[in-house]
């Protein structure tokens, strides 16, 4: 019995240390006063956190990543919500094929998506890097959008649309009056999942970078190959807190985990 009582706290202690510990170290290292990345941190200062905000390329790539995460997710939702609705409410020939097509970007390694986009869209069609990144991120988020919105539609009885129609509403009106209000939580969750996925995404964006156009994580990788001070740690910590904060709020107010 004794062994069993110890088993649980020891196992969980080790696993959580392994999973969370490195993140805490990053946070601690970013408060260091020293010149190099080290743990335990040498002294305490906010200088590296302050430095993050002065690096110009970080600022540009942060805006780029924000634009991709928000714009790409919105575009994926605009494509994904009608598709999910069709897949869950209509008897559609080839529904499985369509579902496979829109979910495919999740299966294929991101680096391949990025490379093939570069080779066969950007180069032959003279598409700008920003637009290519936008397309790539939209394609990448689309599977998540379809999955989460579908799950949320699946929890909603489909006869309420028919009830609305019988009470005089048009089909489109029924969608906006009784479907949309009831899947709002799912859509918000899809948005957050898409945002976090896009923001943290590296391999897709790796090949799609040009002069002055880069996503933040790609920029960070490039930066840390040259500079070995705690500023990357500080940026990592800041980004992590941003993601955690968003997801925490989402869970609090939307019950995010129901849909994911």
């Amino acid at each position: 019995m004794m062994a069993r009582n110890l088993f649980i706290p020891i196992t969980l202690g080790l696993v959580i240390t392994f999973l969370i510990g490195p993140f805490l170290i990053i946070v601690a290292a970013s408060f260091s006063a020293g010149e190099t990345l080290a743990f335990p941190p040498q002294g305490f200062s906010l200088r590296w956190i302050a430095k993050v905000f002065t690096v110009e390329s970080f600022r540009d790539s942060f805006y780029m990543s924000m634009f991709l995460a928000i714009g790409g997710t919105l575009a994926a939702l605009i494509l994904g919500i009608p598709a999910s609705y069709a897949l869950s409410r209509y008897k559609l020939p080839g529904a499985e094929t369509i579902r496979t097509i829109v979910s495919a970007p999740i299966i294929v390694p991101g680096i391949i998506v990025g490379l093939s986009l570069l080779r066969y869209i950007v180069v032959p069609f003279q598409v700008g890097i920003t637009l290519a990144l936008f397309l790539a991120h939209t394609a990448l988020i689309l599977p998540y959008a379809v999955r989460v919105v579908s799950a949320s539609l699946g929890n909603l009885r489909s006869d309420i649309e028919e009830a609305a129609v019988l009470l005089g509403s048009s089909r489109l009106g029924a969608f906006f009056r009784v479907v949309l209000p009831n899947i709002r939580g799912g859509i918000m969750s899809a948005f957050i999942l898409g945002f976090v996925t896009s923001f943290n995404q590296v391999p897709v964006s790796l090949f799609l970078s040009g002069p002055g156009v880069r996503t933040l994580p790609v920029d960070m990788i490039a930066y840390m190959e040259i500079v070995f001070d705690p500023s990357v740690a500080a940026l990592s910590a800041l980004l992590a807190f941003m993601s955690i904060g968003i997801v925490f709020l989402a869970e609090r107010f939307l019950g995010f985990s129901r849909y994911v």
Partner: protein
Amino acid sequence: MFQNRAEALALALPAALFAAAVFIAPVVILLSDGFRAPGGGWTISAYTEFFSSSLNQAVFLRTLKLGVLVTIVAAVIGYAAAFAIVSLEPGKKGKVTGLIVLPLMISPVARTYAWIVILGRTGIVNQAFQALGISEAPLRILFSETAIFIGLLQLFLPLMIISLISALENMPKDAIPAARVLGANWFQVFWKVILPLTKEGVVIGGTLVFTGCLTAYITPAILGGSKVLMLETLLYQQVTVSNNFVAASVIALILIVMSFAANILLKRVATARNKTMRNTKGTAQ
């Protein structure tokens, strides 16, 4: 279920066409590049050439090895962790599960970067080793398979634990006590009761972890450096350093085939076990 076909297509086609144009078409063309003969026509010489290089073989085997190893270790730790979590009281269970999921929200760049601080020359591990007198000079842990292994495990372990938590929660409540009453020891309980009843969870978790290892780029890039390559980093090098798009296409197909093969194989394993279970049940009755 609505019947109107035109309406349904109008709703579903934009997304499907978008994914087909932006994603499927370019990827398919890229994959076909590996089979194009220089003078026109088709050939598999790029593949034979790729596998004839001992460097490529090593990278391929390393990718396979790390994928399998990480998946197995994740499953072992995952069972222990998931088992510990489901035996917590409900309030605590939610909090601990939250802590397990938390790292998934953190940028993989940040998560991988932390290991430099820990495993680097002046990192925590080396400091500890030297302080304890285990080693004199700093060990080279970074830029090794070990470092990649640790990084990948940390990256994907949460996926395995979550899959196993839901599998364990869906298990009939009395299965374990029933087996204990019948005299099974914990090892037997695991093999005869828990594993068969949660195999779907391991299969889902295993697929996620293994596919994750194949598609992870950041971890091998940062923790493996330019010497200890995996297929993803090799692909990147082939394109950026050697400008060899044919090799990139070959690697891309290998990665896709590997993840599909893993998918199918794991599903097979799950159903095969199912059959033997049903058979033994049949004879017992």
